């Protein structure tokens, strides 16, 4: 039997695999930094909407701590906490909490909490809720999520931290109750977490946190 054609074909296929991977590797090499930069800028933009840049002077993107609390933060995975400080004094913490019980999977949030325990604001980072119904949690679709600003564990009290249908203070959407219910619960839990751990969140240095 003549193996030559088989070997030639294999060699040719191999050559193409090498050229293809080379092309991808080259592009990756030249775009990786820019892509990373884009992700960083997108996150910073949401952080700036929540905490005005003049309120802090630290490198908030790198002053980050990773914490775990399955019950209150909605995920088994470590959750990022970005810390805003001015002249070294804590100003606010932004918790990347997760609402695990959205209509269609988890909703990733950024919950910004001022030092005194009031909410500086909440934003949705990622979700798969129904377009046209549940996606009113996005700022581009409605102002609903802006309503969290200034709220705290005392205002409204425990009973108020629900959507109106469940007897609470927050509006649900026409045709969508599950999505706002999940977000309200997740924000409330993040506030509870902050009450339990607020002090520690600012004490730990990023270096120390990454070692622990």
């Amino acid at each position, binding site marked *: 039997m003549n193996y030559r*054609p088989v070997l030639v074909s294999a060699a*040719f296929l191999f050559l193409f695999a090498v050229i293809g991977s080379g092309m*991808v590797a080259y592009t*990756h090499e030249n775009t990786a930094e820019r*892509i990373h930069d884009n992700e960083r800028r*997108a996150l910073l933009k949401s952080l700036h909407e929540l905490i005005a840049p003049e309120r802090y002077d630290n490198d908030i993107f790198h002053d980050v701590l990773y914490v775990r609390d399955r019950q209150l933060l909605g995920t088994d995975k470590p959750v990022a906490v970005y810390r805003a400080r001015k002249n070294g004094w804590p100003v606010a913490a932004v918790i990347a909490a997760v609402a695990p019980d959205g209509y269609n999977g988890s909703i990733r949030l950024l919950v910004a909490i001022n030092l005194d325990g009031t909410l500086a604001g909440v934003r949705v980072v990622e979700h798969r809720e129904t377009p*046209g119904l549940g996606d009113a949690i996005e700022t581009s679709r409605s102002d609903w999520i802006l309503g969290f600003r200034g709220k705290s564990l005392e205002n409204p009290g425990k009973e108020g931290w629900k959507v109106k249908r469940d007897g609470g203070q927050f509006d649900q959407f026409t045709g969508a109750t599950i999505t706002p219910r999940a977000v309200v619960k997740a924000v409330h839990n993040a506030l509870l977490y902050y009450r339990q751990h607020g002090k520690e969140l600012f004490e730990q240095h990023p270096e120390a946190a990454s070692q622990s």
Partner: protein
Amino acid sequence: MTDTRTIIRDGLWTNNVGLVQILGLCPLLAVTGTFINGLGLGLATMATLIASNVTISAIRSLVRPEVRIPVFVLVIASIVTVIELLMSAYLYDLYKVLGIFIPLIVTNCAIIGRAEAFASRHSVLPAFLDGLSMGLGFMLVLVTLGGMREIIGHGTLFSHAHRMFGNLLPDITIVFAGDYQGFLLAVLPPGAFIGLGLIIALKNIIDKRLQARASRVTAAAVPAVQPGH
């Protein structure tokens, strides 16, 4: 040698990827919620089609028939990955919306279909033209469907243009009704199926009319010639 005009007409109309070959339905139906999303995926698909057609046509005499399919897949997968990286580097906002559908271009049968049916049998220039017109035809379907669904579903057109053009363009969103509540069916996947069905039906009506007129013209032309004999 295939005629240039036939290639272009095939791609845009007679053998349109979306309306006649009905290929690449998954991205077609999934991303056409708005005009701009359709345009974004349309351009990415067109770029892939052109690049893969040209590459495959250029190497067609080197590739042994028994390994041609794996080679095509390799070429297409590399091109799509490169396009995905470029998009996330330069069109990040759009990438976040279309993200998961970009890798799916690899599995868009239209691309390997054109590679196998056309590019591997023709020289580089016609292959380029075929990629361009097939891609353009697919993009036209994407933006038509996207536009339809956006107008009916959200009451706007050309919204989120900054995702694609950044700050090059001012906000060109056209709002048809200020307090429009939206029509959910058009936004959800069933609306995409219904919309595509309507577009295909419209194309068939137009084709039938054209055919009827063509036969009437020949029928009228034949007797006119006969007296001369």
